[in-house]
């Protein structure tokens, strides 16, 4: 007791317990993997692979007592991040600092040996998680009760059901009593009762003032449990802030891409330069997400240099609802380089264009590239979306500004109503709302 108090005096209660700085984690995807000495010798240097960054330049810090949800689509690097924090993976670039005892629930029951009994596996698994034998013995009864394996203690675990397996794994893992708990998707296994119980256990954990990092797709539980969200996309942190906003953003990213609103507030992360803000404006300079066909538009891009830049090129790509590029313009192609910039220097670039588009959903993606426009240096995680209202007396994608005239024979003026108005035929099936208007 006294010892614990002393320890808490020594270890500062506030201040970051997890610091991740510029972390990049690279994996090799082997095309045809030489797996042996023999192949290595006669195909020396000929093994080919593609490198891919599961994490790119991730920087974040977590304070003592925070509970952070790491969310993002599949393959965005969430689990990789957790594995680096758990020391399973070594950082390839950047560094990671952790203060305090870490326990990770990355896989429940990893390390169980099928031929050993439940009792033997409790001790083995406890040791894998860094627990002393005495500590496991002390909490043995608690583990057995939580898992409900009383009657199966001396039976080899290979005869256990998968639910039982997971329950036992969780029961052992939670007695580790770490300062920092890393949890990967374990909330989603087991039956409903077990899920509730494990959720309650983590809640309790949080109340004890421990630090919690959770990877989960169960957004409702995460909102309940966490205060902060870190949203990853393609290995980069695209959002770091309050849980509600983070979850909202993720929902927009994953659930309904057409419903994405303005992302102006979401800073992107790039290495040389970052886009801090991008706003879509109409011809009058008002923030716009809905315009008339062939209206003038402007995307205002605010970027900040991370390092000294001789010159860069700032541009924008206009895309249709399927993400097909329709138009791209860059300062560089117009003969203007942005720069030179010193680190920390901010610039605002306006990219103007006339949206010769007809009714439908479109998007604009701001981008910073090398002066030649070939290498992308910074972008936003998602393009800014806008909608073009019906009009222009035509349908299709591009507003060619056509007109008609009856040069011979009678003509009669029609009152524009919904039955005769142009219906965007192609989009009818997938966007009934747009058609109705």
């Amino acid at each position: 007791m006294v010892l614990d108090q002393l320890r808490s005096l020594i270890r500062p209660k506030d201040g970051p317990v997890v610091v991740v700085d510029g972390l990049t984690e690279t994996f090799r995807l082997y095309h045809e993997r030489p797996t042996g000495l023999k192949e290595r010798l006669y195909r020396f240097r000929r093994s080919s692979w593609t490198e891919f960054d599961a994490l790119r330049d991730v920087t974040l810090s977590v304070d003592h007592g925070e509970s952070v949800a790491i969310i993002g689509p599949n393959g965005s690097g969430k689990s990789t991040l957790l594995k680096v924090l758990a020391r399973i993976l070594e950082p390839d670039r950047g560094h990671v600092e952790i203060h305090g005892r870490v326990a990770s629930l990355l896989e429940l029951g990893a390390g169980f040996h099928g031929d050993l009994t439940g009792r033997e596996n409790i001790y083995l698994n406890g040791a894998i998680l860094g627990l002393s034998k005495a500590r496991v013995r002390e909490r043995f009864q608690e583990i057995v009760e939580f898992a409900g394996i009383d009657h199966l203690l001396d039976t080899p675990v290979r005869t256990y059901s998968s639910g039982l397996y997971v329950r036992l794994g969780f029961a052992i893992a939670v007695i580790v009593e770490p300062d920092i708990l890393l949890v990967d998707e374990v909330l989603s296994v087991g039956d409903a009762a077990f899920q509730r119980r494990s959720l309650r256990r983590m809640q309790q954990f949080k109340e004890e003032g421990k630090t919690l990092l959770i990877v989960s797709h169960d957004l409702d539980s995460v909102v309940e449990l966490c205060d902060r969200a870190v949203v990853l996309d393609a290995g980069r942190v695209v959002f770091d802030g309050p849980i509600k906003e983070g979850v909202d953003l993720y929902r927009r990213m994953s659930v309904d891409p057409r419903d994405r609103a303005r992302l102006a507030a979401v800073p992107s992360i790039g290495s040389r330069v970052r886009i801090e803000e991008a706003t879509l404006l109409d011809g009058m300079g008002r923030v716009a997400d809905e315009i008339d066909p062939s209206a003038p538009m402007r995307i205002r891009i605010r970027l900040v240099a991370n390092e000294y830049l001789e010159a860069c090129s700032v541009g924008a790509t206009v895309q249709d609802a399927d993400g097909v590029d329709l138009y791209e313009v860059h300062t560089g192609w117009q003969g203007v380089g942005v720069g030179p910039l010193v680190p920390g220097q901010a610039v605002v670039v306006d990219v103007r264009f006339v949206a010769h588009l007809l009714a439908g959903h479109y998007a604009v993606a701001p981008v910073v590239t090398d002066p030649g426009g070939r290498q992308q240096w910074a972008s936003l995680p998602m393009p800014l979306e806008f909608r073009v209202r019906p009009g222009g007396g035509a349908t299709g994608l591009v507003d060619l500004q056509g007109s008609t005239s009856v040069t011979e024979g009678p003509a009669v003026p029609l009152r524009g109503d919904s039955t005769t108005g142009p219906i965007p035929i192609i989009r009818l099936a997938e966007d009934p709302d747009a058609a109705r208007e």
Partner: protein
Amino acid sequence: MRTLQERLAELWRARELLAQFTRKELKVRYKNSALGFLWSLLSPALMTVVFTVIFGFVFPFEIEDYAAFFLSVYLMWQFFQNSIFGSINSIVGNGDLIRKVWFPREVLPLSHVLAQLIHFLLGLLVIVPYLVVTRGWDLLANLPAVAVGIVLLTIFTAGVAMIFASANVPFRDLQELVNVIFLVWFYATPIVYPAAMVAAKRDDITAVETFGWVLDVNPMTWFVRLFRESFYGTVASIDGSSVRFDSGDPIWSLPEVFGVCAAFAIVTFLVGYRLFNRLALTFAKEV
């Protein structure tokens, strides 16, 4: 990058895990076998019969108590060989664990070495009485020397085990090769024949000279010498294929054997540990 001291401290903190893994090795092996430990004595018993028939009768060496001569070192060779055979797959075979939990990875090969060490010690309990009966009470005086030899051999074996276990991750067919490597190594170590016989013919035949040189640089030669001179005896005289041994000479009178064994043990362990830790950085990605 952690320093050697930090790593060793980490390994020390993981001693409980090491004990648990070792226990697991032993338990899993004997879980479904009634005879248990006795099985591990079957192989040395059979090998003794085979080599006693070959070198006692077919191509006779004039060595008294050939079975004792062979057994005095065969158990320690078996400890060495089985440790490597067991640990070579310990990283690749535990990929699931390595991808999901952090712990000092060297615990995996080391637990195999420790499990084999326990077999070895139990085996000695059976063999030593036999050696005492055949070679006399005097050899008991050498038991402290044997204890030191066991410690050094364990350190050496741990180093080799870490090299094989980690190298097997990038070079998966090492697993296939290891049987051949150890077959050659077995005959390149004076286990079934006395080293003195090679030394005696060294000046006469070039091939033997090369072979003698191989024996000299082979660390196991030195460990064999340590164990054989403790358990069987030192060479008294040699004449053709007849070698006479005196039993019971206190091995302590041969400090250079201990020195060479200690040097091999420490250097191999440090090299193995370094290589292992270097390769361990990418274990989670490669297994």
